[in-house]
């Protein structure tokens, strides 16, 4: 029976054997297609494996228990929760009133007959071999079967009695400890022996110690509080085992009514319908689900990236197939003489793409799988969690593999059509003619390019929509790719001014557009992308540099740490002084309201806060808007007000706006105002914000009842609190303190009865601390167990340079690769010419120079076209951004937002260095490389059919 696919069998056989016969070329193309496939399939397996099933998530969170019950801290009022147990809200809407707070009673909500296990977490600083290490202190009876699956024992055993702990392997590594060592918490004299090590499958990098219930957190908390320090901040939940059908949704709702939230295995595995979730019936929860539009947008981005990558690979691999078809022209002619029609010739060349595509799919996915399998422990460490399983999704991998096959086929399409159009006679006799390039393609290209540029211009000038510009640019670039053969023709006109070798190379490239154009297009696409990104980043970089606001004078170092009532501060100050090239050190203290251990903005009981009191007449009317009693303002009034001195905003922010310090701080901050120095010396405060000063005095308001204060502020009233007044010197407008508003001298603070605590220091340096010094200091601070709080003002540093360099190198490699392929093709074609040249007495080096120039010509054309094609979209994007920011700026002014004094600055900067490197260095490099690898001697009579 005659079937169409039987002729394909023969075609595939020929293609398969040819691919094997020309291993070098085949492996090059195979690598080009297989590498991205390897990456994508490895990423697929990794993501799928790391994505846990509901069952696995529950096992890691709940162990063998049915549920975890926790107290959301809403004072035990009835609540509503989402099935996952994370989102919850009180049943009642408290609006602008005080929302319930405080502990509830978990025990009262336990289902009757349930088995429960307390699970507590706190934190503390533990002494290790390297100093102090912040760690989670976990109290749980790990020998209870309910905990099975939550932790994996690595070595030793879990702790069974008081005085024993187990630790995560990461903690042991970070602390330089091992099983058998002892560990102690700072502030508690008890030593704990480490009897085992374990890991948390979901948090491999967690620093945690595990102790039996009641043996660590309670004593530590007691000891810390005795020293008037913040306690161990313990929170407890309960693992619950109920048997039967597990912890059902109805049981969850019952617990909710008692103010307790629940994470339940049964509910997670069989979630209730949204209509059964009362929380989702409340206002504001209906649009909780992710919108379909954002998913579609993400999909479009992925599709575009995949599409462009495939286009690039096709453009690169296409010429390789063209070389193959050209070299086996006689073979294809023989097939024609034996009755193969165009269809069969196309099938043979396409089969070349199919064979390589399939091979690349298999090699890519198999290597991807093997690599992921082999590197699994490393990947898990990198992601910080164990895979749920080695999750291989055959359908997804087949889909990824099909992309490779598709890429191979697409790359072979143009060579296939070109070869099939060649007459049998010409193929057999090896006659070379100048093949006419398509007449339709340039027209399509011109239309696409014109349309794309129009859309881009429209997008850049008439809209502020970046997507329009991006879409238009992509269309224009495709159009220019299609126009490449015609543009290459235009380059031919330059030939007459060139010396012999480059002229020969250029003429040859132009006369054989069929092979030159795809290579030029490949270079074009890669360079256009690079230039677009480079131009955009360079412009953005200039903008960022202009927009950068130093937080401190250049080279100034601050260290601010409010932990533990400032007891580590002296050691921290000394460490900075020891490791950094410090010139002046200005110690600073902060105001403490409430207990000595209170950190700023703490909600803890007995802690309050302070604020600088701004006299009523100095307040900005804009900011008072919306509060009861204020009148609506017109946009014109808002614009006028935004220029008012009371509404000024310099955008600078300091962690502490009031610091207790002496005049050394002024010199570190480079404040050039002798009056301020003498003011501080004489015990007067210094203010840097004239709004806060009235009648030569500045007021600090001490707020002790923060709940009441919050309520008053919500109602637009002043927070209640005692105002302490200080005589003050107002620094001139020219002096800036980088967000710091008031400096109080210590004697004045003391005289006013303010409580203060050391918080850190400001340092001026002789030179910027170098990397070694910074590392040494970090190690010293780590050993103190502090969370840093170190800031070094290094001025604007651009982190784009590495990216730009990487992009330029990528574009260079693609260019050299594409130009090399085109040169190989040209040499195959030009073999008879070279023999003729040799016969008429040309020296052997002509061969080298010619191939060098052929390669250089392709690279130069691609880079020149690509640079032009890349600068345009970047400019379009910047223009759009400028329009967008101007619009926001106008809107902000109309809305009466203060502090928008400057119109947006969106510069367009062409990265000339990168462009120059691409335009000159890359073609020259490509040419030299091609000349270097070309043999000077002609090959001995080659078999034409080879």
């Amino acid at each position: 029976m005659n079937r169409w696919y039987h002729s394909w069998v023969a075609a595939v056989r020929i293609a398969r054997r040819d691919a094997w016969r020309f291993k070098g070329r085949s492996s090059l193309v195979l690598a080009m297609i297989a590498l991205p496939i390897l990456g994508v399939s490895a990423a697929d397996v990794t993501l799928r494996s790391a994505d846990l099933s509901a069952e696995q998530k529950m096992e890691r969170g709940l162990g063998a228990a049915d549920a975890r019950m926790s107290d959301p801290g809403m004072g035990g009022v009835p609540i509503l929760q989402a099935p996952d147990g994370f989102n919850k809200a009180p049943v009642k809407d408290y609006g602008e009133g005080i929302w319930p707070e405080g502990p509830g009673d978990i025990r009262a909500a336990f289902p009757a007959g349930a088995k429960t296990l307390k699970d507590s977490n706190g934190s503390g600083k533990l002494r290790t071999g390297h100093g102090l290490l912040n760690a989670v202190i976990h109290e749980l009876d790990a020998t209870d079967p309910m905990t099975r699956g939550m932790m994996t024992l690595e070595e030793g055993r879990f702790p069974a009695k008081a005085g024993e702990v187990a630790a995560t392997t990461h903690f042991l590594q970070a602390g330089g400890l091992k099983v058998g060592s002892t560990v102690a918490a700072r502030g508690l004299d008890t030593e704990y022996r480490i009897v085992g090590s374990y890991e948390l499958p979901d948090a491999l990098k967690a620093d945690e110690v595990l102790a039996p219930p009641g043996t660590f957190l309670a004593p530590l908390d007691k000891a810390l509080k005795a020293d008037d320090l913040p306690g161990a901040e313990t929170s407890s939940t309960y693992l619950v085992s109920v048997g039967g059908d597990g912890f059902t949704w109805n049981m969850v709702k019952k617990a909710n009514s008692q103010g307790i939230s629940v994470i339940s295995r049964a509910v997670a595995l069989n979630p209730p319908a949204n209509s059964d979730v009362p929380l989702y019936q409340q206002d504001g929860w209906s649009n909780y689900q992710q919108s379909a539009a954002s998913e579609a947008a993400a999909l479009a981005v992925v599709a575009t990236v995949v599409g462009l990558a495939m286009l690039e690979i096709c453009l690169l691999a296409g010429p390789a197939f063209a070389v193959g078809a050209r070299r086996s022209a006689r073979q294809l002619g023989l097939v024609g003489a034996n009755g193969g029609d165009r269809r069969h010739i196309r099938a043979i060349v396409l089969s070349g793409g199919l064979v390589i595509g399939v091979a690349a799919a298999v090699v890519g996915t198999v290597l991807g799988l093997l690599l992921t399998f082999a590197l699994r422990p490393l990947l898990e460490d990198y992601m910080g969690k164990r895979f749920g399983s080695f999750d291989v999704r055959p359908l997804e991998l087949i889909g990824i593999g099909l992309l490779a096959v598709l890429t191979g086929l697409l790359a072979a399409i143009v060579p296939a059509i070109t070869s099939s159009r060649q007459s049998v006679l010409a193929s057999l006799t090896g006659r070379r003619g100048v093949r006419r390039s398509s007449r339709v393609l340039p027209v399509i290209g011109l239309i696409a390019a014109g349309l794309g540029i129009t859309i881009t211009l429209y997008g850049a000038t008439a809209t502020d929509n970046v997507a329009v510009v991006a879409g238009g640019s992509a269309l224009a670039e495709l159009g220019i790719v299609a126009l490449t053969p015609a543009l290459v023709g235009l380059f031919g006109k330059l030939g007459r001014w060139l010396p012999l070798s480059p002229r020969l190379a250029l003429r040859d490239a132009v006369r054989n557009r069929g092979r030159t154009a795809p290579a030029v297009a490949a270079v074009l696409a890669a360079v256009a992308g690079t230039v677009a990104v480079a131009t955009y980043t360079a412009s953005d970089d200039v903008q960022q540099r202009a927009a950068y606001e130093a937080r401190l004078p250049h080279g100034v170092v601050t260290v601010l740490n409010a932990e533990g009532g400032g007891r580590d501060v002296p050691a921290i100050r000394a460490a900075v002084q020891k490791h950094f090239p410090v010139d002046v050190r200005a110690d600073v203290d902060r105001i403490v309201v409430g207990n000595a251990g209170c950190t700023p903005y703490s909600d803890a009981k007995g802690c309050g806060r302070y604020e600088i009191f701004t006299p009523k007449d100095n307040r900005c009317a804009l900011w008072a808007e919306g509060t009861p009693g204020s009148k609506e303002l017109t946009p014109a009034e808002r614009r006028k007000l935004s220029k008012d001195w009371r509404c000024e905003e310099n955008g600078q922010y300091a962690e502490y706006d009031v610091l207790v310090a002496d005049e050394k701080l002024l010199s570190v901050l480079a404040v050039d105002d002798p009056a301020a120095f003498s003011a501080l010396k004489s015990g007067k405060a210094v203010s840097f914000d004239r709004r806060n000063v009235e009648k030569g005095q500045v007021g600090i308001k001490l707020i002790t009842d923060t709940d009441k204060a919050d309520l008053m502020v919500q109602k637009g009233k002043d927070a209640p609190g005692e105002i302490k007044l200080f005589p003050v010197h107002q620094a001139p407008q020219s002096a800036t303190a980088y967000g710091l508003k008031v400096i109080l001298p210590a004697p004045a603070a003391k005289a006013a009865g303010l409580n203060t605590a050391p918080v850190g220091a400001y340092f001026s340096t002789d030179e910027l601390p170098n990397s070694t010094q910074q590392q040494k200091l970090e190690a010293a601070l780590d050993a103190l167990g502090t969370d840093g709080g170190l800031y070094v003002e290094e001025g604007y540093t651009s982190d784009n340079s590495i990216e730009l360099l990487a992009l330029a190198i990528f574009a260079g490699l693609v260019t050299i690769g594409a130009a090399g392929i085109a040169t190989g093709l040209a040499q195959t074609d030009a073999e008879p010419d070279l023999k003729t040249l040799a016969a008429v007495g040309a020296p052997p080096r002509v061969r080298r120079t010619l191939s060098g120039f052929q390669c250089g010509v392709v690279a130069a054309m691609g880079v020149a076209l690509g640079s032009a094609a890349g600068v345009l979209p970047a400019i379009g994007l910047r223009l759009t951004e400028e329009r967008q920011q101007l619009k926001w700026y106008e809107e902000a002014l109309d809305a009466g937002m203060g502090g928008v004094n400057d119109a947006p600055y969106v510069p367009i900067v062409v990265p000339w260095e990168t462009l120059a490197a691409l335009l000159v260095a890359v073609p020259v490099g490509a040419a030299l490389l091609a000349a270097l690898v070309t043999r000077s001697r002609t090959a001995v009579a080659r078999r034409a059919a080879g």
Partner: protein
Amino acid sequence: MPEAMPGPMSQKSQQPQEPHESQQPVLRLEQLTRVHGSGATEVHALRGVDLSVFPGELVAVMGPSGSGKSTLLTIAGGLDSPTSGRVVVEGTDITTVGRKELAALRRRSIGYVFQDYNLIPALTAAENVALPRELDGVSARKARVSAVAALEEMGLGQLADRFPDEMSGGQQQRVAIARALVGDRRLVLADEPTGALDSETGESVLALLRARCDAGAAGILVTHEPRFAAWADRVVFLRDGSVVDETLRSQADSLLSGQAAAQ
């Protein structure tokens, strides 16, 4: 060489019959004209050539370089089209059919043997012979069976699984002849098939061609070696695109000796 090599004379003495008027020719060329280029560069490759080849007949075409021998062959096989005139293969005028039918005709009716490198390097001998039928949509297994049968019939069975670069030049040419006549093909067009071979090997290739014609195929052999033309039933002499002389086998010897003396 599997079979004893018979000389041209003994071969012909076994096949004494002349082509009959009653028989349909496999190939008929009528007033064939081919002009390359136009205006100043106009070249008349063929000027009104008439030629018929009957089943069982091997016709040699001779003539100096540029006389139009190869053009005649390419037009006869449908690889090139004439400026005017008719080419009838097995009753079909191939100048009137489309590209696809022409390719189909080459698969089913016309076989080519070129001077050298006739075989596709990526295919074994059997696969090369099977190629026209496979392209025609016959399943690979069926095509292979008939290809191996054809090779065995010609005494080339042992070459079936060899690739071209594992065969000698003579072996390759004989496999090419097997391919030219596989299936229902009855017309073999051979363009200097012995050109790249030494004379002894050349003789063996022609012996095979002669044997296939004796078995019923029709063949045209382009050559400029009188020695090889002696294997033919008829010799046609071309000069500047026209047939200047045509002789039957019975007269060929004397003519050939004259031709040989002239060269």
